[in-house]
């Protein structure tokens, strides 16, 4: 399958490590992918404000990918993944919206006539590459890690369309971590939202929600966090300092992307995995 690689807005600013490590891992396992040229926002952050603009932006990605000859779209953000996945379902009974977005797409010589399959990096890792292949490639077991998985809401919901993992009992991140030699037991707050969506509405409360999730991970004995979504990762990783200030507690816990855990277990160079951008203190754990 020839994937069009869609990196999303966050890679332009705070999430270089997500893109860097995803590229390295996908390449390592021989996944056939190339960047979708001229890509823009997937639309998801705009959906609650201007539905037609969301639909246009999501359709634009599909139209570009199709025109550039890809068979499917690979995503590295749960928000992008849901947006691009749900588009055809949401437009099914809305020919008027399809007409409007095509009028807009025509400005750039584009046309939307249905979506391509969309695959989140978790699906590519778990289904395309598979546990067996990953297990065989492990060089350095991550035995010191007791890692709290965080799937992110948009990777598992809604139930009405296909998502990368089960909506109430996801297991794929944990299965992958365990194959790498880490421990990743389930915990009661596994499904709790990171609250990234409300960071622009009430930052203090949003950080309280994410900070409390990290705090409970610590209390339950985890020494690290694994994310697959840059929005979740920002809330539960990069924002730990401010969240700690909001809560008046220490909520520092090394947070890394799943692809970075895989890279470490493969013995890859830390800088090649973008770990220099993870500011939550992974060094001690890795060098244990």
């Amino acid at each position, binding site marked *: 399958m020839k994937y069009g690689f869609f*990196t999303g*807005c966050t*890679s*332009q*600013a*705070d999430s*270089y490590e997500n893109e*860097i490590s995803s590229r390295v891992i996908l390449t390592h396992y021989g996944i056939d992918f190339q*960047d979708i*040229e001229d*890509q*823009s*926002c997937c639309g998801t*952050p*705009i*959906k*609650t*404000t*201007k*539905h*037609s*603009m969301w*639909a*246009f*932006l999501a359709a*634009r990605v599909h139209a570009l990918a199709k025109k550039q000859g890809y068979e499917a779209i690979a995503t590295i953000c749960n928000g992008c993944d849901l947006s691009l996945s749900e588009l055809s379902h*949401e437009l099914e*009974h809305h020919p008027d919206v399809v007409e*409007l*977005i095509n*009028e*807009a*797409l025509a*400005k*750039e010589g584009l046309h939307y006539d249905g979506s391509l399959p969309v695959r989140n990096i978790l699906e590519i890792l778990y289904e395309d590459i598979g546990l067996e292949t990953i297990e065989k490639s492990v060089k350095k077991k991550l035995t010191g890690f007791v890692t709290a998985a965080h799937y992110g*809401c*948009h990777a598992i*919901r*809604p*139930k*009405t369309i296909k998502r990368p993992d089960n909506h*109430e009992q996801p297991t794929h991140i944990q299965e992958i971590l365990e194959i790498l030699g880490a421990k990743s037991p389930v915990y009661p707050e596994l*499904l*709790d*939202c990171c609250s990234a*969506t*409300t*960071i*622009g*509405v*009430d930052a203090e*409360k949003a950080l*309280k*929600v994410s900070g409390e999730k990290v705090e409970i991970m610590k209390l339950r004995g985890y020494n690290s966090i694994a994310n697959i979504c840059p929005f979740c990762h920002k809330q539960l990783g990069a924002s730990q300092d401010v969240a700690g200030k909001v809560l008046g507690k220490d909520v520092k816990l090394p947070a890394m992307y799943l692809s970075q855990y895989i890279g470490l277990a493969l013995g890859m160079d830390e800088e090649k995995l973008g*770990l*220099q*951008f*993870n*500011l939550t203190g992974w*060094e001690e754990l890795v060098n244990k």
Partner: protein
Amino acid sequence: MDTIEYSSRDKELANKIKAISDEAKPEDCYTCIKCTNGCPANKIFEGFAPHKIQVAAHMGFVEDLIESGILWYCMNCLTCQTRCPMKTSPVQTISSLTNISVNRGIAPPKAFTEMIRAVKANGAIIQPREAQTTDFDFLTRDDLELPARGIKDPVKFQEALKIVGADQVLEIKKAEEEI
């Protein structure tokens, strides 16, 4: 509880919601409260309860909800939609209502307008910037030799965005600034 003014009832609301979402279906809600029990926004924002929003939307009494701005507190976690035994979607009702309020000229929280402005400027909600490393270096996409991003034909892209309503949102903001 305050009495609801009958005159504030929007009899066309059901159709306005349907124009945006097929799955919202506030009319199918039987107020079991399962959505609110699993709602993270309900735990932290006082008065935010998806089942109440479904009922209010079904009845057509949403003026208070729209004016209070409370609808923007939804975290968009989709738990309510996933768990609703009646296969309705409170989150889609909420998202339809925020859209309806913006269409009417009520400004969304500033962060949303800013994101639309940024998309219009270069296709992404965030402007390209430097990221800090553990060695206190500040690096850009270029430094990292990552492929360049940005819209090839910004003028055409902006014309397209105008058609799908981006400018309508930005103009609301302008009106506010002028006051």
